[in-house]
């Protein structure tokens, strides 16, 4: 593979992007925002070739191999050359990583039998960008194993140097002054089962798209809306009325801004919107009532105007001269509190739909499943990520609690809707904590 000039015109450090600013500040001793993106192949993974593939792609994706550093006013990302990050998977998914390490970047690559995955700190990149890099790594790995990948596969060209646009902070690029403020959001009901530290239970559900898509279509809504309603209703059913406060049950859905703004950035470029329903509105809610309550809300929130307002308010906050002047050591505490009060308190649980992953011919034949898992959260005991391939929708519930009442209601509701499902858990009953 032709080698590009390493480090040419690529800065040694980058300021964190606007969304990424919050994550190093919000971290706690036992948590930082880490997520996973990976593939289950049809053959056993060869770790030597995986390391070689990583060596080959790393200069094409410099913004991923970085560590977080402490500046006087802000944290920043510093490029790292150490690529000894390929490890056999030996613990629970999305284990918190030391993003400040001087030894290794805030990304790791894990393999186990037929699966390999990337685990990355959210301050570096969002799911969409990581998936782009994961696909390039997969294609290069398959090439090294002797598979033929057509040149016009639509994947990132590894022979090209990285484009400057891929490293830009698109939040700042598309910031517009005076577009108005987004509507204030009320606090949501919080689901707080007992937390188990050093633990992440992942429940992986596989649903055939041929079952789910017609079910959503029959209700006249999109797949994301449908699954969001199922998830919200699962909370409603799982938690008895006596344990629910008088607040809305809300799901936080990330929206990729790449669909609204022309950008090639491989860093964070997404925002969140919270959608839910008020369980006090009726004595007893049926699934149809919840569907009706959420129908169209996501589409209404996903307009360019709404996104522009949200983006601009976030950038304006970061660019406020007073905020910029505060030393990082103090700002970190403020942001940590702000993250909980203005972010985490506004929703009950996150739910991300990474969408359908299309792999080019030559690659798709060697991949059996795709994987996307959200790591633990500081406040939320349950998180949900969805990703689909050609035939199946994969739902990953992850959380640092043993309780599974919400997941149970989720899959039971799907079964009542006539949707087949298969469930797997990363922790076998004999391994589970007492």
């Amino acid at each position, binding site marked *: 593979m032709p080698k590009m000039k390493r480090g040419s015109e690529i800065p040694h450090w980058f300021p964190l992007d606007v969304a990424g600013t919050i994550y190093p500040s919000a971290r706690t001793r036992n948590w930082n925002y880490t997520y996973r993106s990976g593939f289950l192949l049809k053959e056993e993974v060869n770790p030597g070739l995986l390391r070689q593939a990583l060596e080959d792609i790393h200069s094409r994706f410099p913004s991923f191999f970085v560590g977080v550093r402490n500046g006087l006013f802000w944290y920043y990302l510093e490029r790292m050359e150490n690529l000894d990050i390929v490890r056999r*998977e030996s613990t629970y998914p999305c284990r918190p990583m030391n993003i400040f390490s001087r030894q290794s970047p805030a990304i790791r690559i894990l393999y186990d039998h037929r699966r390999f995955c990337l685990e990355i700190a959210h301050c570096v990149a969002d799911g969409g960008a990581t998936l782009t890099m994961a696909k390039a790594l997969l294609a290069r790995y398959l090439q090294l194993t002797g598979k033929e990948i057509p040149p016009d596969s639509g994947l990132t060209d590894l022979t090209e140097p990285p484009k400057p646009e891929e490293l830009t902070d698109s939040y700042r690029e598309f910031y517009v002054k005076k577009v108005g403020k987004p509507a204030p959001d009320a606090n949501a009901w919080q689901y707080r089962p007992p937390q188990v*530290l050093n633990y992440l239970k992942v*429940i992986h559900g596989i649903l055939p798209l041929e079952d789910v898509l017609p079910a959503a279509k029959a209700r006249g809504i999109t797949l994301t809306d449908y699954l969001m309603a199922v998830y919200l209703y699962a909370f409603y059913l799982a938690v008895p009325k006596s344990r629910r406060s008088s607040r809305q049950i809300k799901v936080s859905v990330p929206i990729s801004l790449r669909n609204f703004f022309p950008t090639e950035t491989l860093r964070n470029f997404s925002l969140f919107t919270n959608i839910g329903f008020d369980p006090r509105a009726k004595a007893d809610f049926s699934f149809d009532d919840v569907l009706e309550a959420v129908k169209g809300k996501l589409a209404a929130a996903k307009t360019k105007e709404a996104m522009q307002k949200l983006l601009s308010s976030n950038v304006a906050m970061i660019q406020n001269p007073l905020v910029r002047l505060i030393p990082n050591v103090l700002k970190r505490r403020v942001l940590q509190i702000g993250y909980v009060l203005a972010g985490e308190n506004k929703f009950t649980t996150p739910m991300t739909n990474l969408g359908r992953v299309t792999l080019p011919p030559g690659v798709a034949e060697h991949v059996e499943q795709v994987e996307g898992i959200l790591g633990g959260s500081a406040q939320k005991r349950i998180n949900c990520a969805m990703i689909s391939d050609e035939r199946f929708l994969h739902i990953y519930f992850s959380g640092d609690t043993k309780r599974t009442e919400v997941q149970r209601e989720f899959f039971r509701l799907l079964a009542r809707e006539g949707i087949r499902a298969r469930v797997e*858990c990363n922790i076998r009953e004999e391994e589970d904590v007492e």
Partner: protein
Amino acid sequence: MKCPDCQVDLNENVSRCPLCGKLAETSEPVIRDVSYQDYPAYEYRRFQRNLSLVYFCGSVAVFVALALLERLLTGRLHYLPYLAFLVPCVWALVIRPRMNRSLSPGNFLLGALFTISLLLFWVGRMQRLPMTSTLASGVAIVTLGAVSVLFLDTLVHKKNRERHLVFLLIFLVLGAAEFAAALREGHAHPAYVVLSACALGLSLINLIALGAFCGRALWEELRARFHF
């Protein structure tokens, strides 16, 4: 395998449903042609609790014990404000960085500087020595020692060079302040003037050496550290 209550397919090697805990029943899978991920087994390790509360309580206990001792010996609480300053300094500069595994020599040197200066200040008060001279001489000695250590570390450890930049700047400012104070004080002891001049000089040499070793990387490091 299948869960009779949740109506979901389960892996062949599980006996209970991971959703509800019910015993799984043998049954034909409804979804075929997809294999299980088979996550690797791992041994749960209990999370080691944060010891910061222990350290904090320990620091407060030391503070209270010293205050009581002073009250017992002198019948006053004259040095309480200095102690109150010393405890958070040691906490912020020595204990906390150690807990975060940020074992930079600069942190320890700065911590040592504050601790020794305050102790000198305390001793000076007890011995009724002129305060500024005692404190300033102590700070000058410690600054000189710290800058020397940083200088040696810069020569030996290539990786640490850029990390020393911030500490070096702090010591440079301290050295300059001491030298200015020594010059301003008309009847300052010559040793004190020489010491503070040496501290300032070595800080400058160290900075120049760092610039020579690191070149443009040092400028980039400065930009990154202070980006606004």
